[in-house]
């Protein structure tokens, strides 16, 4: 067991180190978050709708698009210089590689999710509500489910000639529960409703993340086998 944890940890460490040194994905995703906030602000007619009414949905949509941008490139660098073969041939089981990649993607996306939240609070003049921890939890659970599916299908799409362009078609239909429960919970919490009102949403987000993680860990080896 401890070997397994160490194998997962090694992948996470390697990916995060690579990201910290190149800063490629975090830079593009961060810039995307701010610029999407700018465009969404100008796409809103404030004489027709109150910005805070639609902000929660926009936060989640920004997270989804931004996440695809970053998660879609999970295997890009490694497959370009052939390092992915080396990782796959290492004694680490395929599900450990998947979990490692998913955790490092999660760390990346969660940082971006916090940035997205901050950007929208600033641009749309939102208050965090009475339970900021619940907002952070909703974003964490949603991001976890998203990266689990995103990492699995990034491996699929990087093996096709279509590349990342096919990723939204594979992932969007499956993200319906994440958007419904995530945006629902965030909207209510930002509007100052009590946590009890969104406890069901949070549980469903958690269950969704668990199923996505389990499916990804079980099926990843069929995607990367030769």
């Amino acid at each position, binding site marked *: 067991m401890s070997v397994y944890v160490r194998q997962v940890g090694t992948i996470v460490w390697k990916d995060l180190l690579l990201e910290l040194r190149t800063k490629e994905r975090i830079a593009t995703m961060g810039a995307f978050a701010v610029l999407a906030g700018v465009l969404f602000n100008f796409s809103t007619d404030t004489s027709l709708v109150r910005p805070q009414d639609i902000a929660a949905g926009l936060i989640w949509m920004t997270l989804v698009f931004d996440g695809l941008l970053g998660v879609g490139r999970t295997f890009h660098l490694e497959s370009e210089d052939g390092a992915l073969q080396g990782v796959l041939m290492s004694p680490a089981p395929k599900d450990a590689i998947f979990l490692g990649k998913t955790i490092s993607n999660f760390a990346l996306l969660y940082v971006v999710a916090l940035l997205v939240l901050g950007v929208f609070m600033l641009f749309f003049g939102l208050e965090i509500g009475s339970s900021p921890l619940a907002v952070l939890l909703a974003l964490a659970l949603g991001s976890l489910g998203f990266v689990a599916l995103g990492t699995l299908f990034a491996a699929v799409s990087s093996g096709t000639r279509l590349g990342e362009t096919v990723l939204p078609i594979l992932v969007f239909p*499956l993200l319906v529960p994440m958007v419904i429960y995530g945006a629902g919970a965030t909207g209510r919490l930002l509007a100052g409703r009590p946590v009890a009102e969104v406890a069901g949403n949070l549980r469903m987000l958690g269950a969704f993340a668990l199923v996505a993680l389990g499916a990804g860990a079980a099926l990843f080896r069929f995607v990367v086998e030769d």
Partner: protein
Amino acid sequence: MSIAGIRRAGIFFAVLGLLGLGVVYWLSFFWVSTEAAQGIAQRIFYVHPPAAWTSFLAFGIAALTSAMYLWLRDERLDWAALSAAEGGMVFGSIMLITGPLWGKIAWGTYWTWEPRLTLTLLLWFIFLGYFMVRRTTDNPDQGKRYSAVVAIVGALLIPFIHLSVVWFRSLHPEPVVIKPEGPTLPGDMLTLLLTSVGVFTTLFLGLFMLRYALEGLRHELHVRARRAAA
């Protein structure tokens, strides 16, 4: 059963299904009583739910055979998954076209986020992804594995998707056939609906077997061409 035998059975069921479809159309226009509230437009009822049922059945078979393919690696399971998935797309498309047509008359709007309509739309797109990854790999075996993964993940998450959409909103009439107190549909309407479900299922079975036989013949051709070359 041999490929030729499956092909013959496929032709039999497909012809039987097409004849049955003619009978269902005839009965739904000239025999069944007209529904009081919706009038003649309600007759689309004998096409829409059977198409929906058949597409769910087909996608279910596709997901199941996909999982078995990844497990057993028998090419025939992949042919079955592909054939069922194509059938699901066809009947899903029929459901998605007849739904809005009926919805415009019954509810006054072409599209509602009714859970079962939404479910079919999302399944349709999940399987669009299934075909896209399948056809864009350089190595066909890779495409088979990719598409199987797409079908399995889709099948695992469909309950969540459906639950969340139901939770989000529901406008649809309550189910009228399978209820604890028994069907509330008038006798002749129920008879025709169940007949139509049987006919659609038979037609799907025929098309499924024909498509499977086609895939088998392609494989045979491939094997023979390779043998001739060697």
